[in-house]
């Protein structure tokens, strides 16, 4: 165990935000979960007791008849805002006094940094470079993430859970978002920051970064395994595999939706449903492709003269 190496990585000033992000995320997930749980219990109670549902104020917060429903922004909201500003300022001051912003040697195109890392918030994309060509990891994925976020309000037709925390009323939406945000985005950043060393190779925490380490990894392409040699054959083979993934996967999504979320399915238009299918399958494709690489050393699935996937 190389504690010095570990400490160097954890305490690198630009890595501190990620070290901070992890407990922050844990705290806020806990806070959200606590409220979601309370709301779910309230819903369950009201569902079984229609009389109570008619009179209850329908929140987990205390409320008594005669209490004012609204409070003045000044002072009740503004004092919180001012307090928040002061607290953030103090945190920032302490952080800035105790930790210096990094400054390396002057830029030198002839002296490559190894590993050369993107800023921490883009490390998820850089990690994807291991498994995908740059045009996918660097261009298509960010574009899809942005579009995917933007379509969320238009494909989520579930009217429940608007304006309060809940888990039971939005299981599918919340698990999908957690999968994208925590697993595909945050954990890839954590890997990119703490695990990837020189040559973007995998170093377990505490393993010494060996700048001369070489890994002989013979990656194969999926068509090779099936003995397909002609270019046309490879292109058609890949098209069939990728097309098949989307066709079969699409069908699977359909039958799962129809079976387990019939209400949501009936609310969705064809367009809404197809967009949901497409984004779900693309998201799931990431870990699948990673598994192909990690388990069977497969580099490309679909090879054409213009692009490889």
């Amino acid at each position, binding site marked *: 165990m190389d504690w010095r190496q570990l400490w160097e990585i954890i305490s690198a000033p630009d890595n501190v935000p990620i070290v901070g992000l992890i407990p922050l995320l844990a705290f806020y997930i806990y806070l959200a979960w606590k409220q979601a749980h309370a709301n779910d219990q309230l819903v369950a109670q009201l569902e079984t007791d229609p009389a109570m549902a008619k009179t209850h104020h329908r929140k987990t917060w205390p409320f008594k008849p005669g209490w004012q429903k609204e409070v*003045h922004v000044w002072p009740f909201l503004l004092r919180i805002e001012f307090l928040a500003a002061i607290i953030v300022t103090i945190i*920032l001051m302490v952080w800035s006094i105790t930790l210096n912003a990094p*400054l390396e040697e002057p830029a030198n195109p002839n002296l490559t940094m190894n590993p050369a890392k993107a800023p921490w918030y883009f490390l998820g994309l850089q990690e994807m470079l291991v498994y995908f060509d740059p045009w996918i990891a660097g261009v298509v994925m960010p574009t899809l993430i942005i579009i995917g976020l933007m379509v969320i309000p238009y494909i989520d037709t579930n009217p429940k859970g608007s304006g309060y925390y809940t888990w039971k009323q939005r299981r599918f939406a919340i698990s999908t978002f957690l999968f994208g945000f925590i697993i595909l985005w945050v954990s890839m950043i954590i890997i990119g920051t703490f695990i990837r060393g020189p040559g973007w190779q995998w170093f377990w925490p505490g393993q010494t970064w060996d700048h001369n380490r070489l890994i002989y990894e013979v990656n194969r392409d999926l068509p090779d395994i099936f003995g397909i040699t002609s270019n046309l054959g490879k292109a058609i083979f890949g098209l069939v595999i990728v097309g098949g993934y989307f066709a079969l996967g699409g069908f699977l999504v359909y039958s799962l939706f129809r079976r387990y979320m019939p209400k949501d399915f009936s609310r969705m238009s064809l367009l809404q449903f197809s967009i949901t299918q497409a984004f779900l399958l693309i998201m799931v494709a990431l870990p699948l492709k990673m598994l192909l690489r990690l388990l069977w050393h497969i580099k490309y699935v679909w090879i054409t003269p213009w692009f490889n996937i």
Partner: protein
Amino acid sequence: MAEEKNGKNGGKVGLLDRVKEKITGDVQALKTDIPTKAKEQIEGLKDPTKTQVYTSIFRHKHDETPRNRALGVLSNVFLHLHPAKINRDAVRYSYTWGMGGITFYLFIVLTFTGVLLMFYYHPTKVQAFRDVLYLEHDVPFGKLLRNMHRWAAHLMVIAVWLHMFRVFLTGSYKKPREFNWNIGVLLLVFTLLLSFTGYLLPDDQLGFWAVTVGTNMARATPLLGHEGPFGPLLGMTPYNDVRFGLLGGSIVDANALLRSYIWHCIGIPIVASVLMIVHFWRVRKDGGISGPAQVMLESEADKPRRGPTAAGA
């Protein structure tokens, strides 16, 4: 008129006497006038809110009446983004986590420290790195300034993510807030781009290689990059593709530094500010903060809904 000029002795009074008399009168009056005025002044200062200066700035009293509490918010250009009153539960920290507000506050801190940094920084090769060294070692509080700008930028990225996370978990993107969620997504992108364009500016190895890695991906842009799918077919070379446009050259050099600087200090902040104005405006127009709203029961889910669902509506 003429008689008035006659003195007690019937003789004519000299000019000097007349002046003397008037001055004595003035002095007598002074002894009473000034203390009265002084008293009035002190009396007046006891309640500064009644002074003309105060009332010219604040257009209403500061009493603890509901009317004045409301006016205090409504008649202030900065505070009137808020309504006068909000739902009693919407002020709970546990609902919004205050993250949108914290993000905005960090943006203000960054603008402030950023402007100060600009006084010491030239976006040219050689100079840029020296400026940062100078800032760190010779400018009073320069190091603190740079640190604050850097850490506030990191914090802002984290705060935006958490804000988005909370908005998702409370379902606050649902009707009627779909559009504001989209404005938010754009703000997220611009926040990341702000951070990224700033990374190059110290012109050190860290920024240089991060931006090199980042922009190398642009080579591979489908259609528009010289190493991307179909790029070469469309006549893309290292000297005319999208990466060239971003960097102002085929390598990360002086032009890239200048472009980065202009996007970082002028272009993106302006766009982001405009988007923030729209974002805040829409929070109000969409019925204020979405919750904590009343929970919806299964049986109510498919009933037609009335109007925007503001908190507690």
